[in-house]
């Protein structure tokens, strides 16, 4: 009889784990050591600058020199300008609440409960309307704040949300028009989408801000912010339309044929069968597109809007804090990072979830 031997232990010792992951071959070992040294050096410099040698409060402002660490006092002094831009000081609580409303709208629409072709639009339109009412004011004792004065993070979020609310339906329209069986319409929209996609966003926004008023009669021009948001939305829609089109193409042809055979009307076929699947299949790309859009909002600074990037520039654009630009840029990068990283993590989570077949 041979004694039964227990199976080899599934647990690896720390040493084994390290060997497998860091020192599998000689070149792995070299890479690992070089990288580890670099990481430690980088971290050391970073922590020294950002925390250990940093100056935190305005009282110590005179210690802010080139040799010292980060001068976070600038954020204490100019932080509100960065976050709120030109929005009137006393009314900034409105801007804060409005921001929170849109952020929770974004958060809510990430929950699968809201993923239906009826609920999502209602949620977004509601969130967006509350935002605009709060920011604009002019009722219930809240003074009117015109859109020229909107600024900072809430303007960034407004542009983002506006682009999404207007751009999504447009994207659906573009996608459907491009795969229409009427050749003229399909070709024209295809041409239009391709043109828009090959232009830099900046040129489109610039045109919307300064050229459109020359081309359109005054009655339908709208204000500058409106024009820029619509132009941005068209740009977004051109990209998103291609994503949706890919989603539509990925649904089996048989489903469409079955619906037609059952005598389903066109709009019902689109909104009940094709679109929900198209959206579901392309959610990761849509999230990716949202991430790109959020980052691209920083471009409106070039045409004179005080979104968070421009406000940051204005914060360092006066005599007092002119030399603390690195700190302000780092602060801005962190703001973007929080939003964008959150969105992209969510996208990654969705991807795994769908790969597992939950969706």
């Amino acid at each position, binding site marked *: 009889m041979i004694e039964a031997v227990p199976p080899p232990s599934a647990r690896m010792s720390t040493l084994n784990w390290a060997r497998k992951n860091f020192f599998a071959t000689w070149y792995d070992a070299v890479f690992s050591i070089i990288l580890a040294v670099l990481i430690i050096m980088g971290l050391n410099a970073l922590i020294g600058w950002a925390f250990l040698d940093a100056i935190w409060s305005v009282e110590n402002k005179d210690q802010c020199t080139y040799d010292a660490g980060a001068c976070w006092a600038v954020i204490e002094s100019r932080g*509100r*300008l960065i976050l709120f831009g030109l929005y009137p000081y006393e009314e900034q609580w409105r801007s804060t609440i409005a921001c929170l409303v849109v952020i929770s709208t974004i958060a809510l629409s990430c929950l699968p409960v809201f993923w239906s072709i009826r609920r999502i639009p209602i949620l977004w339109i509601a969130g967006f309307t509350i935002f605009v009412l709060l920011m604009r004011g002019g009722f219930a004792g809240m003074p009117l704040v*015109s859109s020229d004065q909107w600024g900072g993070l809430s303007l960034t979020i407004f542009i983002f949300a506006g682009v999404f609310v207007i751009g999504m339906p447009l994207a659906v329209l573009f996608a459907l028009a491009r795969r229409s069986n009427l050749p003229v319409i399909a070709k024209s929209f295809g041409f239009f989408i391709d043109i828009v996609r090959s232009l830099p966003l900046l040129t489109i926004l610039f045109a919307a801000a300064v050229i*459109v008023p020359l081309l359109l009669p005054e009655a339908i021009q709208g204000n500058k912010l409106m024009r820029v948001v619509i132009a941005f939305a068209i740009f977004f829609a051109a990209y998103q339309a291609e994503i949706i089109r890919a989603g539509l193409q990925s649904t089996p042809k048989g489903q469409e044929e079955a619906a037609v055979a059952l005598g389903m009307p066109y709009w019902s076929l689109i909104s009940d069968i094709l679109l929900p699947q198209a959206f579901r299949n392309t959610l990761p790309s849509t999230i990716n597109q949202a991430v790109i859009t959020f980052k691209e909002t920083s471009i409106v600074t070039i045409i004179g*809007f005080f979104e968070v990037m421009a406000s940051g*520039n204005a914060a360092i654009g006066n005599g007092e804090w002119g030399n603390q630009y690195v700190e302000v840029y780092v602060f801005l990068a962190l703001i973007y990072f929080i939003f964008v990283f959150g969105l992209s993590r969510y996208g990654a989570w969705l991807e795994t979830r769908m790969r597992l077949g939950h969706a």
Partner: protein
Amino acid sequence: MIKKIKSLAFAAAVTLSGITGAQAEGQGLLDTIIERGSLNCTGHNGSYLGFAEVDANGAWQGFDIEFCKALATAILGTPDKANIVPISWAQRFPAIQSGDIDVIIKVTGWTMTRDTELGLQYSRPYFIGPFYVMSKTELEAKSVKDLEGGVFCVNAGTTIERVLTDYMETNGISYEPLSFEKGEELRAAFYAGRCDAIAGFGPFLSATRVNAPNPDDFEILGDVLKLEPEGIVVRQGEDDLLDVVNWMVSALLMAEENGITQANVDEMKANPPSASIGRLLGATPGVGSRLGLQDDWAYNVIKTVGNYGEIYSRTIGEGSRYKLPRGLNNLWSNGGLLYPLVLD
């Protein structure tokens, strides 16, 4: 068939543009501003030191901003009606052409192309901007010639690009130009040593120097590259508005000449020391209506922003952190180039 549709479309288009065109022609911009109850003025995208900056509360301040407030006060009675629209350098002309803004008050040099080809007109200069070169003290340059071969940084899209090119060509100095769209980047690059010198508008250079980590590292050279008169810009054909702008500037200068300040303007209005001061402050009726304004418009302006000297001191002069000397922007009687028009 297609032909028919085309001609139909054409007819409809003509009607459409006809209607909108008629709307625009009806009244002058001054009346539109009064009717609208707000004046759309230029701000900046970011800040232009001393002339248009944003304070920690998000409120605009600076020399140009004060003039905007003065104009709003003259037309609408209160500075709160000035709506400052953030706008980049490149956008100012398209924006005024399209009617997004009513006036450009953004240290805009009076050049022939702008005056004739863009459909714009200039007010009398409200500021005289000399162009200088600022370099690093360690280079020990005495004049621009000593900077032969150096890197000169300038603001892109402004008149200085051409002025510098001209000056260097005339004097046979070779150099390497580098232009930046935004003042912030320009300053940062200069402080860091990317450029040997910045060429620019005097006040901008002083402000840049004051802001430097160590102001003594930099010095402004004596050579004046060129003198640029800065005017307030309105669209061609808006003569009523241009009149108001010209007389607003003049009123500020006249107030300074006659010692009328924000503090004593009430007293001066009650007992005008001369007939012309009485006319200026609206004690004599009929002065404002010539411009289509209230009689006490100039009184309101001085009460709100003070006279020219007070504005200067508060924003870029002695009373500010930039401490810019008056220089050419003083009254003629004090050795400057500015003078009021005759108020009769």
